[in-house]
């Protein structure tokens, strides 16, 4: 595991039956290293070394909009009345100001069933937007999605 051993319970598991686009694996968890950080890690349970940073896009792009076709919602078996959480994958590099975000291929996750998929936004956003295009580094409003998140800090590995 990238972050050492994790205590995972069934209710933590996020199911992505189709994996990510081009990356297989249907069982994942969300990890936070810092309770106050907007960055989460999407950690694969099929491959311990595989983890991708994710964020809630609206934290960094308040104007973000997601336009989907009905069949993309059917893909995650979304039921009426269920809330959907949206997460975008971040390309983290050495320096925070150089981070990129994929606004075109977000993850949508039914927060009741914790089942989701990576979908293609019909709004033509870039796959590698500068993360700090709309909001400055010091202007982040902290929030977390309504999904189970494992707190696994620096001292826990």
């Amino acid at each position, binding site marked *: 595991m990238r972050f050492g051993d994790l205590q995972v319970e069934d209710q933590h598991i996020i199911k992505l039956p189709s994996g990510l686009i081009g990356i297989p694996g249907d069982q994942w968890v969300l990890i936070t290293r810092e309770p106050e950080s907007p960055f989460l890690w999407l950690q694969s349970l099929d491959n311990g070394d595989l983890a991708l940073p994710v964020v809630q896009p609206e934290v960094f792009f308040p104007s973000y909009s997601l336009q989907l*076709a009905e069949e*993309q919602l059917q893909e995650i078996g979304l039921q009426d009345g269920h809330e959907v959480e949206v997460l975008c994958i971040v390309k983290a590099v050495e320096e925070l100001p150089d981070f*990129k975000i*994929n606004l*075109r291929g977000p993850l949508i996750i039914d927060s009741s069933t914790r089942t989701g998929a990576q979908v293609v936004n019909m709004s033509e956003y870039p*796959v*590698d937007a500068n993360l700090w295009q709309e909001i400055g580094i010091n202007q982040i409003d902290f929030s977390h999605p309504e999904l189970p998140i494992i707190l696994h800090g620096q001292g826990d590995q």
Partner: protein
Amino acid sequence: MLVISRRPEEQIRIGSNVTVRVLGIVGNSVRLGISAPRSVAVHREEVFQSIQTENQAASEAPRNIDGIL
């Protein structure tokens, strides 16, 4: 794979409510008009490839950022 020849303005139908019309041909580029209900997602294949490339790159985040994220 089904291979069909079509001339400009001719179309093909996929299922009961998706049609693809050849609008014109300029040089080596074919313009297609796609009519599909809103429930059907239509994307260029390259979008999936670029998302796949970004996923791969994002999964290779350097270890020395583990301290800041």
